[in-house]
Each structure stands twice: as C-alpha cells, then as structure tokens.
C-alpha cells in the first residue's frame, strides 16, 4: 500500500494538489465543504499512518479517542465546577501518553513505545492548551467533533506549527472573501516553493551532502577538530532549513484550505539575543511554552509568594521552562543539557539587559555591538544545536 511521510516527495505534492482542488474551488465560490475537508484529512492520515505503519495508525486512533473523551469530560465538568485538583489531574492524564512515549526509549534502551506515533507531541500540545483555556474560562463552547478536526488537521499533524483552538475555530467557521483568499493562495504557493528551496535544496546540501562527510572526519579525529566545528555549523543550518522548510509546506497547505496557521520561523539567526531568538525560532512551540508553562509557573510562584523578588521568580522559571523543553525533546543527557543551557542563557540575557539599562551611557550601543551581539547569539545557538544533534554522544560512544 502507498505510504508517505508528509511532504516527502513529488508524488505526495501531486496527490496533495489534486486533493486540495475541490476545496480551492469551493472557497472561491464562497463555500466550505466541511465533510470534504474531513474526508481528505482521513485520506491523508491513512496515507501517513496506514499500510506498513498501521501500528502507529492504531496508536493514533486510540490516542484520539482518549484525548477527545478526556477534554470533553473536563469541559463539561468545568461548566459547573472549577476545582484545582480536577484540573491538575486532567492535565496529567492528558500528557501521560506523551510522557510514556518519551520515557520508554530512556528506560528500555532505545526501544520505542507501542503507543507512540509521528506527531504525538503536537497533538498533546493542542489538547493541553484546550484544557487550560477551558480552565481559564475563555473557551466556552467546546464541541468534541470540532476538537477532533482541530487535532487531526492534516497539514500540521506530524510536526506543527501548533495552532490554538479558538484561532483555528475562527478560520474554520469562516469562508474567506475572494480578495483575501487570492492573497492566501499567493502566499501559500510562495510558502510551498520557498519550502522546496529550504528543504530539498539547502537542507539537502547541508544535511545529505556535507554533514555525513564532516561527521566522518570528526569521528576519525577522535576529539576536538575543525571538522567538529564544521559539523556544528552545518548541522545547525540543516536543522533550520529542514524544519523551516517543513513548516512552510504545512503553512502553505493550510492557506490553501483557508486556515491561517501561524508561522513558525522568522529569520531566527538574525536575533540579537537569546530571548529574541526564541521569539523567532520554532515560534509556535516557544509561545506555547511561554503561555502554558512559563506564565503559569510565574503566576503560581507569585500567588504563593515562593520567591521574594520577581527577578528570582523569572530566573527560576526560565530554567524550569527550558529544562522541561529539553526533557520533551527526549530523555537523554544531551537534550536535557541543551534545555538547561538555554534556560541559563535566558537568565544571563535578562541580567545583562538589566545591567545595561542600569548603567546608561556606560556601555556602547552601535552598529558594531549589534553585529557582535548577533554573532555571539548565533554561535551560542549553533553550539547548543551541536549538543542537540547528539553527535557528541556518538563521538563519546565511538571512543
């Protein structure tokens, strides 16, 4: 049976184009066929999770039933009651499958959990976000059927960008005006072609042509070498162009369906500091962490007066927030170190900006310092990506 990883080859795009045609015609005529959208969502899910990957497919179905029921029960409960422990228990129940999937390889020597499937993280993010907004009382009219559509929206199912329930619902219920839709089509097409350049040209050059060679030389050198420095930069470029390319495909496809999925990357290597970097890199993930982990923890610590100064509160929360992100990437020393390093960097960054503000006129600020700041940020990020790549671990094992 035919089976694809999303956006992997020309044939996938061919099928995608044909499948989108009725939607495009519909919207141009001012109509949305929700039944057809559901149908092609199911069709693409079967292409992604059927055939040889049917175990993943079954895991996905089970997961969907479980999460939809869980969120449904909670939102119904929330209409009448609002106890904290029920909320906490619901969030825990919602993330348990993801936790199992992430912990299994660490405990069972690299084995994959059978309940896992491509994209489980992104679905969990959507579910938790829906629970939290329901707790806040901003999400009132929950519909399990729509929630399911939101979860399995096929362009973004495997790796995001992570949309929000209410934002998605506005687009889903609404047919864009023709003028506006032309813009979306144009932008969508541009995104997809930009994605080709990113993923199939640049990521190919960095990841397939250069990276293996450099890794080979770095391994042969047994220790620090210029090749290792090369691995660091080339891997960073590969990571960016591969993931940003993928995101562009997902966003472009969404636009064709009249859904304005939020962007995921905004020239991240141009950042002057690490905070700006996280506002430009994997944005939907970092905003999710900001809204549902960082802000929640800060409020919690302030409410319970855990720390005296707000500065300490922010610093501790930065570290917790980024460490959790590290754990989410996978329970290995290098992902966790990657997270902690970024947490520390955010603390240092805040401290430095405060220091600069507190000593006006003392620290120069000009074109050169800006370039220097960008340079430092870029190199720090590349270094953490080298950790993230796991290549240092490979080198350690090879020794």
């Amino acid at each position, binding site marked *: 049976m*035919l089976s694809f990883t999303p956006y992997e080859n020309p044939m996938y795009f061919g099928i995608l184009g044909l499948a989108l045609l009725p939607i495009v015609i519909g919207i*141009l005529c001012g109509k949305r066929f929700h039944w057809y959208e559901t149908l092609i969502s199911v069709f693409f899910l079967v292409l992604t999770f059927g055939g040889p990957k049917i175990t993943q497919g079954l895991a996905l179905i089970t997961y969907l039933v479980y999460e939809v029921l869980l969120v449904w029960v909670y939102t119904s409960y929330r209409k009448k009651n609002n106890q904290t422990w029920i909320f906490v228990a619901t969030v825990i129940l919602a993330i348990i499958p993801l936790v199992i999937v992430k912990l299994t390889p660490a405990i069972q020597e690299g084995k994959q959990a059978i309940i896992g499937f491509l994209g489980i993280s992104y679905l969990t993010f959507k579910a938790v976000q829906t629970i939290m907004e329901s707790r806040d009382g901003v999400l009132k009219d929950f519909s399990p059927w729509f929630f399911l559509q939101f979860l399995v929206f096929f362009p973004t199912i495997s790796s995001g960008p992570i949309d929000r329930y209410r934002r998605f619902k506005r687009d889903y219920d609404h047919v864009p005006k*023709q003028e506006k839709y*032309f813009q979306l*089509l*144009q932008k969508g*097409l541009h995104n997809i*072609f930009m994605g080709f350049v990113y993923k199939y040209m640049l990521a190919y050059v960095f990841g397939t042509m250069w990276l293996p060679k450099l890794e080979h030389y770095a391994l042969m050198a047994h220790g620090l070498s210029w090749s290792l420095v090369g691995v660091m930069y080339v891997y960073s470029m590969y990571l960016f162009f591969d993931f940003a390319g993928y995101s562009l495909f997902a966003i472009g496809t969404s636009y064709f369906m009249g859904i304005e999925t939020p962007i995921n990357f905004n020239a991240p290597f141009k950042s002057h500091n690490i905070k700006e970097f996280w506002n430009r890199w994997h944005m939907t993930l970092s905003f999710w962490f900001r809204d549902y982990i960082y802000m929640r923890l800060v409020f919690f610590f302030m409410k319970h007066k855990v720390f005296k100064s707000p500065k300490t509160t922010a610093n501790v929360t930065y570290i917790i927030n980024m460490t959790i992100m590290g754990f989410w990437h996978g329970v290995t020393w290098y992902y966790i170190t990657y997270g902690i390093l970024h947490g520390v960097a955010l603390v240092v960054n805040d401290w430095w900006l405060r220091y600069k503000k507190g000593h006006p006129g003392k620290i120069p600020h000009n074109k050169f310092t800006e370039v220097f700041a960008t340079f430092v940020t870029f190199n720090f990020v590349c270094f953490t990506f080298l950790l993230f790549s796991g290549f240092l671990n490979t080198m350690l094992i090879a020794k």
Partner: protein
Amino acid sequence: MAKKLFLIFGPVLLAALLLIALLFSPFKMNHMSTKTEDKAAVALSPNVLKGQIIKESALSHKQFVPFFGSSEFSRFDMAHPSVLATKYQRRYTPFLMGGPGTQSLTHYFQMQLVTSQLKNRKAVFVISPQWFVKKGARKDAFGFYYSPMQSATWLLSRKASSAEDRYAAKRLLNMPSGKANHTIMMALKRVADGKQITKHERTYLVYEMRLLQHEDQLFSDLKMKNNQGKIDRIAKQLPDHYQLKDLDQLAVAQGKQNTTNNRFDIYNQFYVRRLHDKAKKFKNFEQNWSYVQSPEFSDFELVLNQFASLNMNVEFIIPPVNQKWSAYTGLSQTMLKEFDRKIRYQLQSQGFNNICDLSDKGNVPYFMQDTIHLGWRGWLAADQSIDPFLTKKQKAPHYQMNSKFYSTAWQHQISIKK
C-alpha cells in the same frame, strides 16, 4: 477571477508542464565527450558504475575494454593495468568498473545497462575470494551501487522465465534496494514466481526508465574523480621499453621502498591507516573464516550466465592473499585452496577457460600491495595474461551453462572431487 488565478498558478503550471515534457521525453539529453570517457575509465566513481550514459558511450568504442572487479582497481601502482596501458600505448584502454564493496550481484545488475555494448566483446574480471563469505554481498554496499534503472532495464528485457531470472529476482528482493520502489518490487515478485510482468508494470517501467535515464544523462558526468594525473605521474617512473626483467626489478625495488614500517610487506600508508592500531586484535582473528560456503557462488553464476548469453570472452583473475599476513591472522591455507578448486570448477565446467590463477603466489614478496590487494609484482604477473589475452586473437569460447550453480546445495558444497 480567471486572470487572477492565472497570475498565481500560471507560471507554476507552465514550469511543471515543461519539466514533465523534458523529463519523460524519449530524447537523449547529453553527449559524452572523449574527454569524459577517458576520465570515466579511471575515475572509479560510483555514479559511473551505477549509471548508463557514460559506460554506454565509452564502451561503444572498441578501444575501451571493461575491467570488472572491486577495490583493487583503486591501487594505482606501477603495473596497474591503466598505468601500463598509458605508458606503453596499448591498443586497449581498461574501463575500470569496481570499487570497495562491488561484488558479483552489483556487476550483474550494472551490466544490464550496457548489454548491447558488451555483446561479443572481451573483458577482464578480477575475482576476490573475500566476496565469498557466508552472508554474501553486503546489503548497504549493494545499495550504494544500485540504481532502479538497472532493475527496470533488467525487468523490461526478461522474456521466457529462466532459473537465472528467478534467482536474480529473489536475490534482489532480499536487498532493501529491491523493495525501495513498490512497482519494481511487485514486478520482481512476479519474475521470482516465474511469471511475466504485467502490462501496467511495463508501462510504468518505461516511463520510470526515461526519467532515470535523463537524470543520468544530465548529472552523472558532474561528479567524477580525476585519476589521470596520478596515473601519468606513476607511468613516468617506468622504463621506456617493456622488459619483464627490468619491470620486475623495479617492482621489487618499489615494493621494498614502500613497505618499511611492518613485517608483513604491507604498503606503509595502508598499514598505518588501517592496521597499526589494531594489529594485536588481528592475531588469529581469521582462524575460522571461510570463503567456501556463500550465496556469492550463485551470484557469480549470474555474471557468468550474462557473459555467456552476450557471447563475451573473459579473462578471470584470481588473486592470492598476502601470506605473511594470513599466517598472522590464522586464515586457513587449506580453505583458500578449497575455494580455488571450487571457483575453478564452476568456471571450467561451463567453458570459461581463460583463468589467470595467482592464488598460489601469496608468498612472493611484493606481490600484494597490502593484505588482499594486488600490488607491484602482482599486477605485473596479471599483465602477463591480460595483455596477450586482449591483444591476440582468441579461440571462440563454447559455454555449457548449468543451472545447478544456482542451488543452495552448490552454495554450501565444501569440497570438489579432483
């Protein structure tokens, strides 16, 4: 509305149409120059081996003689066939086909792309005893030199089902490469079952072929190593006239000069890079190795079958193993003799009688460049058979092929009656 839509999608559609027309058109899109052919003959690049256009273009000239083998070709030293052919302006230019990990199965499939050029031709084939290990050809190495163009061509040219076809299809299905393309896999399954491929499969393969051929035509001459400089440099060291005695002396001198850091007569660089750090590990490491039982024997039969059906005349070279080294690693001499008998039986019983058997020369100093690759005196010895074979008129061979060589019984058979 139509105008706006056209402004958005028009360029994309136009580009797509042009590209499709270009990629699937039945026209040849590139021409290989003599320079490219000369470079390719000694480039040893995987894209030349797995592709079609360059081999096809070069082998259509009688000047180029296909040399099939593996990693020994990359050892350009003073008596390497390409060096001798350059220096002494021989009537033939070896077209080297082989690299680390190329074995019989790779050669069988890569040959499919140039069958019409190989018809009635002479060729040289260097057998490596090391191919004939228990597990046979390595899957990743096979994949490295495989292109779906090979299997598509092969599938399209099958007629009545034969033992050769069924065995080759099964063998390819054992490899991840054979399963990479769904239609090719299904077609291979049919051939393995002794059936014809379907009409739909045939149509698909024709278009797939065109696409792959165009890719090959457009890009495969872009990535080629240039080895001619190296060859010219080495050729300069040779005396102007071919005198076996002088050349042998030179070979000994060069061998001596280049094997000073170890007691196995192994090329210094090779020893430092590959063996020095692990030398202790190798002691008696190969005691239980065997080259006598292997699926490779049947894979090799595929190659022989192909040679026979193209009416080719082939000189087979059987190199030895460096004896100083094998004594150290404990590789069994009895086993090597057994291998030699078995492979010779497979060759001679079917009418392949041009064999340059060097298997007993493992103890000749500087015969090997390292552990298993022919070196200074080894190539010179091989040349004593290769050159006359290629330059003098040969008797037309008569082949009597026997499908028993595809059986697992033959793959496992240990000894041959004398």
